């Protein structure tokens, strides 16, 4: 099984890819979300991420478990917390499957669910010194995964 984790250090994709790499899975997809230098036309200096850690970890683990439930996909997620400079990754998602369709889908689903279900917040520091919490997706119940439709 792949893992879910939180870290206060810069992300390293290599061990994440190793987690999902198995000889029977020929497609590996890596997603990195990195800090952009702008938001709605304003220049961003850096982001600071915080989390309700126990619940965030539990919900990330639930996402991985749901993605892996039928044995097709292996997935791993790590989210960075604390200050993340422009250009550095705040989240990394690795997903693998025998054929590429399921891996692409799992990578997308992992991020979409993370953005809706996991108690993590980013605070933007703009170039002019202002700091703003981004509060975007109301936190709801864990979403039940859709039935698998793609072929293995």
């Amino acid at each position, binding site marked *: 099984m792949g893992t879910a984790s939180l870290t206060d250090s810069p992300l390293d994709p290599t061990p994440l890819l190793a987690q999902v790499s198995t000889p029977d899975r020929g497609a590996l997809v890596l997603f990195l979300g990195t800090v952009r230098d702008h938001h709605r036309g304003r220049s961003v200096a850096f982001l600071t991420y915080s*989390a309700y850690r126990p619940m965030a970890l539990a919900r990330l683990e639930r996402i991985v478990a749901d993605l892996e439930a039928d044995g097709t996909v292996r997935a791993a997620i790590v989210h960075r917390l604390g200050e993340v400079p422009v250009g550095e990754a705040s*989240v990394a998602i690795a997903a693998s499957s025998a054929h590429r369709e399921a891996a692409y889908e799992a990578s997308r689903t992992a991020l979409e669910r993370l953005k809706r279900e996991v108690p993590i917040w980013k605070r933007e520091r703009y170039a002019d010194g202002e700091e703003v919490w981004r509060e975007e997706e*109301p936190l709801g119940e864990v979403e039940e995964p859709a039935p698998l439709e793609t072929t293995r």
Partner: protein
Amino acid sequence: MPQPPTEIRVQVQGFASAGDALGRERRVVTLPAGSTVADLKARLTRDFPDLEPLWPRLAVAVGGDLAGPGDPVPDGAEVALLPPVSGG
């Protein structure tokens, strides 16, 4: 037989803008036994008026699970005030 407690103590932590309103540290709140999430909200609003405009956007977790206004708050519970999220 020990008497059931007439008061309960819970720890409350706010995140993002709720953390700004509540202060960053965990707050210990003492409430009558049998209090609900709604009772806790009323007490927190009284003690931290900056929370008032935030409530419509806040989710409340008790022990790491989302809770509604009518849900009980157990003695010793960890309560978290959770604005809309922005991870990733």
